[in-house]
């Protein structure tokens, strides 16, 4: 089991954050720390725009950072579950 940092970009809409947080509980994963901000500094997030071929406006999406302790298999499963949420644009591990 290793400590992982997850980086999640999601729509800044009511109810979006709680879906991600709720998923951890539903699937039996633990959250150790959590931080969320609206994305203002757009140039840092160009990779999201390039990856998904979209344009993001200021404050339109949020950046959620979560740390959790899981093994590799579970990590992949968590990321796939998070990515499956309709309001999530991208979820990945920060190495």
């Amino acid at each position, binding site marked *: 089991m290793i400590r992982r940092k997850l980086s999640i970009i*999601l*729509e800044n809409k*009511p*109810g979006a954050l*709680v*879906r991600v947080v*709720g998923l951890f509980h*539903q699937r039996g994963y633990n959250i150790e720390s959590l931080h969320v901000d609206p994305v203002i500094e757009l140039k840092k997030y160009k990779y999201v725009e390039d990856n*998904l071929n*979209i344009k993001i406006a200021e404050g339109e999406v949020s950046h959620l950072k979560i740390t959790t302790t899981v093994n590799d*298999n579970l990590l*992949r*499963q968590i990321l*796939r*579950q998070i*990515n*499956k949420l*309709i*309001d*999530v*644009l991208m979820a990945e591990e920060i190495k």
Partner: protein
Amino acid sequence: MKLAGNDILIQSLLKEGVEYIFGYPGGAALHIYDAIFNQKKLQHILVRHEQGATHAADGYARATGKPGVVLVTSGPGATNAITGIATAFMDSIPMVVISGQVAKHLIGTDAFQETDMIGISRPIVKHSFTVESAQKIPEIVKQAFHIATSGRPGPVVIDVPKDTTAPDKLFDFSYPSKVKIRSYNPPVNPKSSQIERAVEAILESEKPVIYAGGGAINSNASKELFLLNEILDFPVTNTLMGLGVYPATHERFLGMLGMHGTYQANMSMHNADLIIAIGARFDDRITNTPKLFAPNAKIIHLDVDYSSVSKIIEANIAVFGQVKNSLSEIIKLLNKKRDLVDNKKIKPWKEQISEWKDLHGLNHQMYLNESDNKSIMPQAVVQHTYNITNGRAFITSDVGQHQMFAAQYYHFDEPRKWINSGGLGTMGFGLPAAIGVKLAYPKEEVVCITGEGSIQMCIQELSTCTQYNLPIKIININNEALGMVKQWQDMIYGGRHSESTYQSSLPNFIELAESYGHVGIRIEKNSELKSGLEKAFSLKDKLVFVDVYVDPDEHVYPMLVAPNGSLKDMWLDKDNKT
């Protein structure tokens, strides 16, 4: 065109091609109900309990492939719908549930019939929406139907605060023609590299099995599956959810696998060198102990849902996309490599499987041994039903022994004919689901094979059947007990039948059915079984409730040995294990 919020909602549903909406009125939904009253195109089906509405919509969706639509009021209406939403969620059934909500200014005040529907339903929906204003309704409805029906389908809740459907405020109505949700892009077509790897593994295998589940039905892939196997000639097994996606009467079909799967299906999976999983999710009722699952098999997993692959069993080759499309691509590539397909290679494997089948396969003609000295066998009830309906009926079921007997002994040759709650295992599903199926296919035979425990969980829907004239046939396999619970208690708890019998408290189902205006037929002897069932099916315009008293001590076999068993570890009858 200028319309009020309530009319905008109904017009939006009509734009989505909705023909039936299953529901139950109440305060927060009354503006919407008024809009329903003022039009004729969308038919509302008034159930007797909101759980019935969700199961009826679910049955409609499973039979047609189109989304089922539900309308309930806030508070208790919404919470009553939860079991049905969870049922649809577990089986990936497309459904849109519209729940009334208290007006926006009352939200958070513990107002009368206020409940946080979005919060309560969150873990059991694919997505949910709150309507903030009437103008947003068309876009939300469009997105909700898109999400419910695309990718891996599922239920979507739209919570509608009462003020957004007020009849006195008018807005311009136009319905969006297209929908794009930038954060939602389920895979459609597989990558060619994945297809190449899959085909390579297929060509190498000597002991292959095709394992197809509900996802193959959701993707309408039965034709592609059939065509693929005309090339490959592989043995096929289906999950409980997948029954019908490959013709059950085909000689390549092994029967269902898993907990109550056939001996040959479970043995084939256990000993395979290649498993092609198609829209199936390696549920614990299939794998038994995952560590012991199919020790020598390479796994090719075709699925539309990334998170279903390598969740329980690691896939060697993952093929993401609509499984219909993935199968088409595999067929195309195989056609190019036709000279490399060697059907003779799997001959010894097929011989082995046929030996297994001869050794411990199911007896599909138990009715040949009937006599009035013996109790009615529940399996024979299903076998007669199969024969009388020529195997063509829609069969809905509930949960328990009767469900497993139906799955084992009714041979489904077509997809969408077997309608049952596989994932959540919801008792009470069968009758309301049959309502949805019968409305969708009024000319087809629709049969609910149920148990006296399950049928009582939504029996109030007999009244709905009267109101809408739905001549469903209900076959109640009456063992006067929560049979499946009792079976577990026999096998695992030393025969201690804790709370699994009713001590002569069962109703007279015949009189009960008659009181709703239906016909009841009681069958207690083997000599009455065939003729009683034939009579029921001859009454074309009537709902007939056939109450069949069967051997209360019968168990469902085979049954996987758990915990710590593999797929080759099965109880074959009360005394014998593999």
